[in-house]
């Protein structure tokens, strides 16, 4: 069980949170402009990185805010947490 430092509520037990998968996959502004392959990329295709990954998490049982997390999926170490909308500090 991780301890997650919610950018709004502070450190809380993992059970208060929901994981939202890979971060920075923006919903296409004009889906109708995309062909089926491009739409499938958005819908289904994922990097699923082993190592440092950008993720979305939601403090579902607290303030209900979504935020971004930088986490090493190989050992579950949380490197960094930053608010939605903030640009990812590392590329």
């Amino acid at each position, binding site marked *: 069980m991780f301890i997650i430092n919610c950018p709004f*509520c502070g450190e809380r*037990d993992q*059970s208060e949170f929901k994981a939202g998968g890979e971060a920075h996959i923006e919903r296409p502004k004009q889906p109708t402009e995309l062909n089926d392959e491009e739409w499938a990329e958005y819908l289904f295709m994922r990097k699923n990185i082993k190592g440092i990954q950008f993720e979305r998490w939601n403090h579902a049982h607290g*303030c209900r805010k979504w935020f971004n997390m930088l986490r090493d999926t190989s050992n579950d170490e949380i490197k960094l947490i930053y608010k939605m909308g903030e640009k990812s500090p590392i590329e």
Partner: protein
Amino acid sequence: MLNYQSSIKEEKTYSGLIVKEVVPVMKLNLRGKNREFLSTIGKNINMTLPLEANTSSSSDNYTSMWLSPDEWMIISNYTADKENNNYQIEKLLFSKISKTNLGAVTDVSDQFVMINLKGEKIFDLLSTGCPFNFNEFKKKNGAVTQTLLLQIDVIIHLKEINTVNLFVRRSFSEHLMSWIDDAASRL
């Protein structure tokens, strides 16, 4: 004429703990972001909404709890009238906030049941079903947290040392009370 029936019938006493529902209590959910929203609220209920996370503020009539950067819950400090659920303050804030698109005001008086816990065993009880770290919380008058108790979403407000108001959605309240009754019997 409609009769009032709260979800938790009787008050319960255990070693070092008293548990009862307080009714009726007006509860309003406030949403808003900008400064004008905050000042309008401030003017109309003459108290300022707490901006610091996990805290509350109160005036003679109301207590307001921080729920998220753009969400608060205001409750009436006194019990309301069972024959009448038209709250002046709701009407007022709705017209000043919702109508003017400064934010949102929603009546949640019965969305939540307010369970009052008194006694030195409060946190022994909570820690049997809640992952939250109360070590600092229990020393801090007015502290507020949203967390899970028995996998149920709750809002916990430390009214004063050894007095806690526990807010839980009404449909969960009977189940939670039954669990509290079970756990408290072993304190």
